[in-house]
């Protein structure tokens, strides 16, 4: 059924477009913070409606395909996976906006201390997002398992970041408002990594027809 195949290919392309928009938003939001570039932060916020619009479009397309093509087996798993992962991608976009908002606030204040944990977290998180999108294209591979395993690194860095900032806050309570905003940023990145993990789990479902959510990935 070549028409349906084309429709599925187009759907996949749209998901990849959405993914690359979200990747850019995450990268730019972190850069706007680390490089104190408020213009870039405003850009991230301004572009978010495009992510939302594309999410809605993809969802509508999935519903249309389910209604008109009555997909089965691999096609069905592909479409249901797409519906779920676009929600995760859209949430990631929102979190990038949150980072950009904190960047706008923090950029108005003196630099607290140089960033160390956050760029590291951002690097791992961006890599996870990129790998989930690659995995979505490639289908069955080891990539989604690697993404899931990397989530722990981000979790650990969130705790490290918090402890370091806590120490600073105890020494100098005046910095508490700024430090809290920084812990927020770390939390946002940690959430983004969680969403990447969700996507990776759904991709494993798409390939194998096996739900591994809320269990431990064994590969």
């Amino acid at each position: 059924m070549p028409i349906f195949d084309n429709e599925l290919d187009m759907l996949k392309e749209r998901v990849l477009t959405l993914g690359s928009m979200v990747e850019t938003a995450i990268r730019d939001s972190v850069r706007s913070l680390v490089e104190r570039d408020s213009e870039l932060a405003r850009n991230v916020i301004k572009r978010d409606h495009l992510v939302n619009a594309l999410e809605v479009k993809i969802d509508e397309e999935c519903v249309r395909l389910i209604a008109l093509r009555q997909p089965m087996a691999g096609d069905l798993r592909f479409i249901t996976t797409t519906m779920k992962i676009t929600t995760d991608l859209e949430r990631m976009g929102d979190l990038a906006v949150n980072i950009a908002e904190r960047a706008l606030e923090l950029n108005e204040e003196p630099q607290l201390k140089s960033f160390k944990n956050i760029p590291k977290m951002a690097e791992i998180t961006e890599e996870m997002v990129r790998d989930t999108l690659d995995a979505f294209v490639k289908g069955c591979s080891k990539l989604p398992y690697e993404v899931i395993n990397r989530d722990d690194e981000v979790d650990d860095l969130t705790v490290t970041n918090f402890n370091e900032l806590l120490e600073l806050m105890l020494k100098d309570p005046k910095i508490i408002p700024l430090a809290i905003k920084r812990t927020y940023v770390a939390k946002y990145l940690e959430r983004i990594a969680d969403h990447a993990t969700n996507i990776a789990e759904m991709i494993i479902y798409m390939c194998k027809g096996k739900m591994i959510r809320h269990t431990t990935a064994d590969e």
Partner: protein
Amino acid sequence: MVGELNDRYLFEIQDFSIFYGNFMAVKNVNLNIEMNKITAIIGPSGCGKSTLLRSLNRMNDLIVTSRVEGKALFRGVDIYEKVTDVIELRRRVGMVFQKPNPFPSSVYENVAYGPKIRGIKQKSRLDEIVEHSLVRADLWKEVKDKLNDSGLSLSGGQMQRLCIARSLAQEPEVMLFDEPTSALDPISTAHIENLLQELRKTITIVIVTHNMQQAARISDYTAFMYLGELIEFGETDTLFVNPQNKLTEEYITGRFG
């Protein structure tokens, strides 16, 4: 031959092949049909699914060149044993076909025919069977005031339910359906599908269908056949979401050939 009785499986089909002359229409099939479940057989035209279905009450006997190898056990007994009473087998294993085929007689007579042949003569007993069968086939309300009308005067969907009632009057343990809704509109189809769900509580159903959505909607188990072979058999939920065989995947996603 009396085999070991199995409480779970009504039919146990073992290394079963069906030939038409030299042509092997069904090849070494192994399949168990579970009691009080709906088992659907799907596959492209000519895959042997109807042949396999019709072998379960020996309808293929009517084709002189046909012969079988292997075993098809019904309640532990090989139905192809020489001693099998084929008439009794067909009473216990009823059948409904693609095109509704009521007898050219009244609604009442259509249903009462089987019991009469079986020797039931008492009018009140026959009335009881006719009503009960028509109720079970979900047709009673529609025809109770026109039992003497010709069965052929009913709508397509009603005629098919009349055929089901006719079969039910024989108190079968299994009913075989060979594409029972392919000549019906969607409303009549839904009616029959709901009826099958209801009947499943008391009898076992095997259905051949070209409509994959129908198999997905109503069956508990699905068998996929191709070129006479049973390619995959499993729970319907699994087969349509996560088939294990590449051929099954290709067929149910419409990418065959």
